[in-house]
């Protein structure tokens, strides 16, 4: 079966020189596709989780009574939301990367403690996190003051009110906008390409540079891969939204 499959694509490449699905029959290229896809999935999952955490913490800090804390959050949002992720990646890796501690395995090489993958995770998480803070803030502001007053009347502290009353309600309001931002985040992971993070786009371009005949197939692969990845994320978010639904609250009630 596998033989026939490989034979088919080998023949296809022979008949149509621009449709060389080389990764289906060349083990080395297949390895590149798999490792690229795996890196993209790891980047996406880690960045999605971190960016949501950053969003929640940021939204909590925005509600703080302390002006300095609120100032820090708004400064963070302005910096990360208003600069392109592409520029951030270059800045983090090349500019900040020069100041991080390094170790040297051979006396000359200076391997930074934070690798290019590390910088990509930091940069992309904070980038998406800045949007998430604003998304959660919109959700928090949608919770009526009277609800918060009622919770403090029942003896909840500020933190308890945020964690048990405001956030659970705010989350439900925020999910559709959060969904959008996370989809965007998954797609933005391709920009880690610029600091040579070996994710799917990097590996695809490497393959079509080595084998110009494989360009069209790599494009098709990229589209299919990102459509599926984003599709899985959207399905997950939608079912989460449904399972969190409170009858009588929010849309669809």
């Amino acid at each position, binding site marked *: 079966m596998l033989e026939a499959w490989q034979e088919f694509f080998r023949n296809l490449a022979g008949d149509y020189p621009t449709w060389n699905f080389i990764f289906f029959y060349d083990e080395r290229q297949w390895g590149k596709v798999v490792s690229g896809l795996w890196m993209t999935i790891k980047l996406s999952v880690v960045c999605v989780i971190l960016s949501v955490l950053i969003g929640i913490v940021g939204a909590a800090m925005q509600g703080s009574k302390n002006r300095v804390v609120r100032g820090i959050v708004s400064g963070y949002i302005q910096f990360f939301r208003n600069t392109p992720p592409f520029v951030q990646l270059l800045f983090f890796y090349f500019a900040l990367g020069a100041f991080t501690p390094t170790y040297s395995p*051979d006396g000359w*090489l*200076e391997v930074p403690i934070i690798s290019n993958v590390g910088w990509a995770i930091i940069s992309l998480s904070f980038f998406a996190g800045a949007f998430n803070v604003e998304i959660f803030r919109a959700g928090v502001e949608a919770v009526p003051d009277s609800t918060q007053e009622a919770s403090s009347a029942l003896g909840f502290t500020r933190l308890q009110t945020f964690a048990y009353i405001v956030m659970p309600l705010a989350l439900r309001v925020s999910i559709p906008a959060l969904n959008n931002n996370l989809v965007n985040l998954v797609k933005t992971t391709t920009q880690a390409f*610029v600091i040579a993070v070996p994710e799917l786009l990097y590996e695809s371009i490497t393959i*079509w540079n080595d084998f110009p*005949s494989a360009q069209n197939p790599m494009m098709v692969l990229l589209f299919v891969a990102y459509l599926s990845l984003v599709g899985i994320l959207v399905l997950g978010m939608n079912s989460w939204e449904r399972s969190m639904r409170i009858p009588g609250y929010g849309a669809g009630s």
Partner: protein
Amino acid sequence: MKKLLAATTALVTGLSPVLASAAECTNDTWNRVMSSGKITVGVKADYKPWGFRDTSGDLVGMEIDMAKDVAATMGVDLELVSVQSSNRMQFLEQGKIDLMIATMSDRADRREIVGIVGPNYYTSGTNILAPDALNFTNWEELRGKPVCGKQGAFYNQITEQKYGAEIIAFTGNAEAKQALRDKKCVAFVYDDSSIMADIASGDWEGFGMPMPTEDDNPWALAVAKAEENCVFGRFMSGMQYNWHVDGTLIALEEKWGIQPTAFLARENERLKDWLSE
């Protein structure tokens, strides 16, 4: 079955004029260039001294001089478009450029995509730019070590597969060289003549080109695949032949401070006019 056969025959005979005409020359590129009076040539903008930007931002270099000669010979204006290793063949395929002179190594699989016409105008091999402090002497020492490269260069593949180096490929030369300066990799793999030009520029104190050059590979300019065996392809073959015979390439090499290669001297000798003194 008979019907199927008849249908197939009809289809094949119906298609055959199309196939036959595909092999004939329409000379689209040539005619367009001559009628519009302008030729668009794709060249490098980051490959000193073949194609790069001077201090005023203009594209200059050895390949730009070659492009100028092509335009002058055809009697048309020249428009230069900067291309990258990873998009140069696509630009040609899509008709964004009429001709590509962009430091491209002549490889069998590339000949299937674009119209590569001989004789090759230059050659170079694979080597590395590495700090003297590491005392590299042979390629095997790179096994398992991080080596910076540029996306789209075929040197990466050889270094990775033959010598097991870990290639970190950046989108541009500038990023790759910066990563080497930042000591993120032990070497920058590229072609020997470009590395020699870098070292000669004086910006790379303490760095050298320590390896014996590997895989000497001729360079090729290219026209669109459909033009390969037609007027434009034949014309470019003639241009290259003349550059070799009259010593233009050797003169350009000298003008741009490139170390003289044995290849150009050999080609000049090989193609020499038998009646000339």
